[in-house]
């Protein structure tokens, strides 16, 4: 007598089937038993999962983005990979093209890249650079894509307790923009995975319309559930500005936005009206949803000073004026309790060559959990002025940390 080790390959994720085992003797069934088998779900990675590798696009030609790439190289070394931007039609938005997930069993582990229907310059990168025996690639949906089909708009929270329900792999969240939503086939598929029960947020105030523009999660072992949520808050933004002298100089903002000092920002009544509307109609209601759908308390929420503006080409919809610091890349350490964070440099200072004396960085670093080591990244020209930030221009492969079959 020997144990029978049977491995079954499924063509579906999180699917159940009945396996009937029969012992026959001379054509007669003498014993039969039914076993329920379940294939592994596909689980979108969250920020408490340790990072294995981070990646971005790189261009070292004249006017290239090396000031963006270098901090990653310097800190992460061989845990960072860059791909040639000129090979992919100068599409820098690596976060938007695919979302990393995991599928695993007690004996096997597989990384997975959910490839978006977005299909712009990066359309073939996943097949050319990622597909391997250890990394599968798959796409759900074939409709004409909208901005919400980009995966800066598909994220997962860390594990949360919502009333009596524990979500050991967190909950997926994504945004809808008026009637524009994540493509239906992908929404249906994510719902079918069950473990991360998705939540859809209304983000119609944004020009690009991705959830990573205004919220993120960071590991913090001192927090009740081991993490803090960081979310933009324009009231905090205006309080921050009003704490500074009016003649506090902002040369880079002057060049790009014609806000040469703090006073010119504060005196722009249209800008203030835009921000008040964003806070009241979208940020506060979404904070409420994070509390009800993710079980968060005020103690777990860090409100980050932010000011939005209506950029050119955006029909009055908004993007970050101060580089969106919540749109950061989080390289979580193996403990799952700390991380290196690559954060858009706000350049809220006169001396652009050093972060010394930057009033915004001083305030923000006070709010950052002690578990996070910040690395300030110059994303101004290639990303911030192009309606994205550091998270949008990077992507991260993570290790799974829980066993789905135990829940």
């Amino acid at each position, binding site marked *: 007598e020997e144990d029978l080790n049977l491995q079954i390959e499924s063509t579906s994720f999180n699917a159940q089937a009945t396996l009937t085992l029969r012992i026959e003797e001379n054509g007669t069934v003498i014993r039969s038993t039914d076993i329920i088998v379940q294939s592994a779900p596909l689980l979108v990675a969250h920020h408490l999962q340790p990072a294995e590798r981070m990646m971005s696009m790189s261009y070292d030609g004249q006017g290239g983005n090396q000031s963006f790439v270098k901090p990653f190289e310097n800190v992460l070394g061989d845990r960072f990979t860059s791909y040639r931007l000129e090979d992919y*039609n100068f599409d820098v938005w690596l976060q938007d093209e695919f979302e990393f997930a995991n599928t695993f069993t007690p004996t096997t582990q597989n990384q997975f890249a959910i490839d978006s229907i977005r299909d712009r310059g990066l359309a073939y990168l996943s097949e050319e650079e990622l597909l391997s025996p250890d990394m599968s690639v798959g796409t759900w949906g074939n409709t004409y894509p909208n901005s919400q089909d980009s995966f800066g708009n598909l994220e997962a929270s860390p594990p949360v307790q919502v009333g009596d329900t524990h979500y050991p792999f967190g909950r997926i969240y994504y945004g809808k923009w*008026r009637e524009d939503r994540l493509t239906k086939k992908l929404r249906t598929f994510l719902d079918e995975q069950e473990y991360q029960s998705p939540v859809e947020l209304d983000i119609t105030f944004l*020009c690009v319309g991705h959830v990573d523009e205004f919220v993120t999660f960071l590991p913090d072992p001192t927090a009740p559930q081991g993490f803090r949520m960081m979310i933009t808050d324009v009231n905090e933004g205006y309080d921050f500005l009003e704490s500074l002298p009016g003649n506090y100089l902002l040369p880079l903002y002057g060049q790009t936005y014609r806000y040469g000092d703090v006073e010119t920002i504060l005196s722009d009544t249209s800008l203030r009206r835009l921000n008040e509307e964003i806070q009241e109609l979208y940020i506060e209601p979404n904070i*409420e949803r994070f509390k009800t759908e993710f079980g968060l308390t005020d103690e777990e929420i860090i409100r980050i000073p932010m000011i939005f503006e209506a950029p050119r080409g955006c029909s009055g919809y908004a993007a970050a004026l101060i580089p969106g610091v919540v749109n950061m890349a989080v390289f979580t350490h193996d403990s799952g309790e700390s991380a290196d964070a690559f954060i858009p440099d706000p350049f809220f200072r006169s001396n652009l060559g050093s972060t010394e004396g930057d009033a915004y960085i001083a305030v923000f670093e006070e709010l950052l959990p002690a578990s996070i080591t910040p690395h300030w990244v110059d994303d101004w020209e290639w990303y911030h002025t192009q*309606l994205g930030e550091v998270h949008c221009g990077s992507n991260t492969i993570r290790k799974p940390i829980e066993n789905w079959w135990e829940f």
Partner: protein
Amino acid sequence: MLHLLLSMALANPDLHNLETDYPEQYERRWNLSPYPNRIGQLHFVGSDLISPDWIPLYLERYHQKGESTDVRRALLYLMHRCDPNLHPSILRSYESESVELRATIVELTLPNRFDASLFNLSSRDSSESVQRELLLAISSNPDLPIKPIRNALQSKDVDVLQAAIRAIHWREAVELIPDLIEQLNHPSTFIQLKALYALSKLDRAEAKRQVKRRRFDQSTDHHVSHLAKGLMQD
């Protein structure tokens, strides 16, 4: 290629000087492609491009090189970053341009100043893109007449309506409050939300009456109900 560049440079002494004094930079800027931003719009990337000194070259590309609409639009944004006042030749060409460029010219000009000719042309423009940009400009520029708002409230385009509602709010056009209340009947909860918010800023008491009458606190749209409940708690 060099012969063509030289010919153009001789016809325009500013171009000629740029080509003579900075040949490598000239060649680079003449051939540089814009890149797609996060929503796929083409924009030129590089702070070294931002200088009023190079506007003659960008203008030449805009008018003469036979670029696509998307590239020409990127050139408009680039020139605007160099100097907030677009060159008069751009405004003179308004009527002959595509809808995308007409909307962009309005977007880049009227929020900053009242150009009567451009205002009149854009007010008569039937394109929804142009109407939207005109209304957004009216929202933020107190020197622009508010007359186009009322007609825009008849539009079936949600972005035009939103811009009109914003203009009523930001310009404090209280005489248009009845039109704002009418928008609370709109089938789109997005427009209801925007109209209710604008009303709450112009006449909070009336906004509270409308919330009670229409039971907006029970709206299936979380953002409408959130706003309504906030008003009822006053």
